[in-house]
């Protein structure tokens, strides 16, 4: 009974990315990559999402927004950081308003490096995240059974 990894819905949030990584994520939806083949849907609604995909370094203004989005997603959920900026802050790291990578505020499960990350890499990252998602679901149902 593992339907979760067959129907992963994605919430994509741009945390002060230069838009380079974002268009690569959207490229995954185009006919060339067509991630809907794997049941992946870009939902834009945290309550429906299973995977939170974040691009760009986190800035001081959207810190609380990202935390809020993460908190609104129902369990089980995973976080994927896409692009060097999401990993460390990248070329924006030294800016006065940048908090750093997404890891500063959220438990990130998969890192997808690259500037910009290529669609193939992003898909690889999501597929890796699916394994972790499945693991989390198993842990969750075990915890429920034990409780």
């Amino acid at each position: 009974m593992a339907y979760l990894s067959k129907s992963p819905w994605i919430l994509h949030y741009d945390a002060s990315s230069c838009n380079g990584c974002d268009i690569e994520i959207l490229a995954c939806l185009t006919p060339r990559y067509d991630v809907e083949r794997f049941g992946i849907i870009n939902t834009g609604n945290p309550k429906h999402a299973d995977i939170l995909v974040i691009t760009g370094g986190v800035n001081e203004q959207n810190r609380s927004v990202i935390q809020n989005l993460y908190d609104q997603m129902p369990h089980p959920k995973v976080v994927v950081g896409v692009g060097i900026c999401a990993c460390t802050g990248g070329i924006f790291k030294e800016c006065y308003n940048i908090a750093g990578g997404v890891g500063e505020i959220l438990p990130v499960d998969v890192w997808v490096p690259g500037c910009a990350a290529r669609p193939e890499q992003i898909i690889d990252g999501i597929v890796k995240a699916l394994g972790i998602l499945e693991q989390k679901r198993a842990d969750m149902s075990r915890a429920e059974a034990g409780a």
Partner: protein
Amino acid sequence: MNTILTAIAFLILAPVIGVLVTGVDRIITARMQGRVGPPVLQPFLDIAKLFEKERVGVWQAPAVLIFLHLAFMVVTGLIFFGGGDLLLAIFALTLSEVFLVLAAYSTRSPYAHVGAGRELIQLIAVEPVIILTAVGFYEVTGSFAASDIMNFSGLPVILLPGIFISVVCILTFKLRKSPFDLSTSHHAHQELVKGVMTEFSGSTLGMVEIAHLYEIVILLGLVYLFFVGNPILGVLAIIIVYFLEMLADNSTSRVKWLPALRGAWIITLILGGGNIIALSLL
């Protein structure tokens, strides 16, 4: 006896048919966009997944109201396919919609409230056509009972062409397809995000999806009624009508609520009303 069998068949088969229809819909939509598309059973996988997820909600009311939405959708189908009164089925269908709207209002989220408001507007837009449909069938067959209409030997569509076209138009509202997907959208992920469904998650959202599967079968059953004397023509009509809905979905973008409401009412008045008046003059 026969009608009880069809009612039971509806209860069991409708979700299966609904999954197949929406699955094929998603594949053909993808092909229209030059993509491959998900597997046919993807809608089933989606719903099964939703029941594996945690349900986030501050309080129980939305989940209870959504359950009533699903329950009355099933009741609608049982009345309709069980050969009951067409007007009663329409009433149950409206009640089911009202529970969905109430559930969205009870979540106290501004996005859900906007979605709920739009859902109500849609209800107002489509309701006249649905009632005129029942009136039209009464004029043709002399009965409001679905069983009598199902035993009718002619083709009601010959006498009800105007009403048939209006039903095809409002089907776009009911199947939640653009240009009339005001209260919820499958594709565009900005603006309202999911309208009425914004606040539902996990099994609650799953119940909404299951109710929609039942609704699709009921609506396609309504299309079939127009061709009731000839089953092959009926099935063909369902396929063509559904294909037209997909084509409209992929080639139009969403309209605002006022043109949608006006459009639906003008079509209802001219085609539906004109059809009824012509019938009564005959």
